[in-house]
């Protein structure tokens, strides 16, 4: 079986059912949380655009923040505005450029390192999202997808700092297809993914692998539980690529877990504290 066949298996899903499912779960989650709505950060990329549309279908009580920096491409803002008009959220959105805060922090940290500053940008956005969420009594909706979460391609406590991840069990390629089904503009659906934390950054450039290939490898390795040899043979790719994806997943495990607590007592939080989230 080749790459295309694996992708077909991932993409051949019932998108109407998925949309209804996610929208219903958003409604239920909101109701059970006792909060009044959702805040979402919209970049104009595929993930945040899809998430914004889904959120708008779940409730009228949502607020969209656009938080560009100097490294945000002009096209992304145009795309973000097209999504805002699509979900009729002009009155429920706000533009907050973050460069002044970024500059303040980079001065205090005394660095121009693009990775450090890039992560600072993500965490400033998280801070703004939570400030608005608290002000409005809303929840922060994350926009991460399964590919990013597995590869660790997100900033810990930045875009990773959210209350829930409605598209977190859909691979990037599935999210793109979902975006097309939801009627998002083709430019959003097709443009290369990028966190835009610095100019010219693209996800696939940074990861060194296309999302199509990454998704196929992630699926075969962690859902079908195949070995790297089997996957390299099945997809007709060099085994080193499979191992690279595997390494990204393994080294980012800490990002997907709560912080480790060193056990002393008879009952420690985390490993021996398995209460449901909705505990009341």
């Amino acid at each position, binding site marked *: 079986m080749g790459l295309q066949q694996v992708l077909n*298996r991932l993409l*051949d*899903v*019932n998108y109407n*059912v*998925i949309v*209804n*499912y996610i929208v*219903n*779960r958003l409604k*239920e*989650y909101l109701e059970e949380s006792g909060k009044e709505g959702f805040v979402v950060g919209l970049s104009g990329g595929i993930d945040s655009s899809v998430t914004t549309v889904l959120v708008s279908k779940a409730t009228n009580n949502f607020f969209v923040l656009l938080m560009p920096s100097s490294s945000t491409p002009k096209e992304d803002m145009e795309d973000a505005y097209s999504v805002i008009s699509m979900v009729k959220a002009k009155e429920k959105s706000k533009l907050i450029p973050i460069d002044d805060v970024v500059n303040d922090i980079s001065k205090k940290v005394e660095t121009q390192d693009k990775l450090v500053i890039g992560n600072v940008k993500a965490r400033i956005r998280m801070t703004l999202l939570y400030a608005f969420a608290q002000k409005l009594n809303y929840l922060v909706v994350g926009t991460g997808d399964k590919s990013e979460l597995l590869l660790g391609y997100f900033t810990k406590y930045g875009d990773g700092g959210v209350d829930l991840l409605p598209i977190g069990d859909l691979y990037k390629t599935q999210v793109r297809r979902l975006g097309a089904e939801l009627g998002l503009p083709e430019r959003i659906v097709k443009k290369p993914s990028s966190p835009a934390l610095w100019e010219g950054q693209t996800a696939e450039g940074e990861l060194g692998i296309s999302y199509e290939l990454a998704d196929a490898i992630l699926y075969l390795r962690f859902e079908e539980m195949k070995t790297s040899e089997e996957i390299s043979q099945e997809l007709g790719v060099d085994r080193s690529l499979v191992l690279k994806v595997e390494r990204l997943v393994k080294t980012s495990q800490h990002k997907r877990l709560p912080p480790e607590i060193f056990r002393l007592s008879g009952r420690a939080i985390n490993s021996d*504290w*398995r*209460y*449901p*989230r*909705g*505990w*009341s």
Partner: protein
Amino acid sequence: MVLKVELAQIRPKLGDIEFNLSKHVEIIETSSADCVVFPELSLSGYVLRDLVYEVYRDLKKASQKIADKAKCAIFGTIDEVMPGVLRNSAGVAIEGKLDFVYKFFLPTYGLFEERRYFQPGNPLKDLKVFSYRGFKFGVAICEDAWHPEPIEALALLGAEVVFIPSASPMRRLSTRLAIEDQWEALLKAHSIMHGIWSAFVNAVGSQEEEYFWGGSMIVNPLGVVIARAQKFEEARLTSLIDREDIRRARYFSSFRDHNRDFHRAMWNI
């Protein structure tokens, strides 16, 4: 001889026994059926994890309240069989009398972690067939329907209908819902092999990350799905179960040829 059954495909609130109990009572009091059947752990919700230890005492009282109200009801609860030893159970309330059926196979793989909390039932002691209005029924809880033995044993003990209270979470959603097809295949196989009615009652709605898909169904002794509840929504599915269908299926089946030597052979595996 006909029995009217209602499958109450409810959305339990995780850990909220009071809410769940009032939902059970409301359904029981408004049902036109002889027997009302609820999903697995319907009084508490399924994804309890360590909350098990916080709720099981309240479940005892709630179970008794159902027994006080129901003519015939089967519901999901937890029974403490000795101090600190808990079992995933179905309460069987018949005209004021309360008994329990225990789950024999406790899924502990993937998203399931039942062995962390529960003790499995013992087939040598805990296989039970009940009788209501002249109809014999058995109860097999969820995972027990994924093995041939529990339902085979119930059928051989005389069960004419097997109720299967379940908490089946959605997974592997593709163009179709694989888990629905799998359940349908299992129910049909049990019904066809034993010439019995099978009634699968699933929970519905979200509990933690999981989502219970509903889709409760009743399969007749010929292996035909004769009633089906909607997916993803609460539902009350009422249907008639007729003994004549059991006879008709068994005239032309080899259910009667139970060969004990297979079980003797399996004992030594």
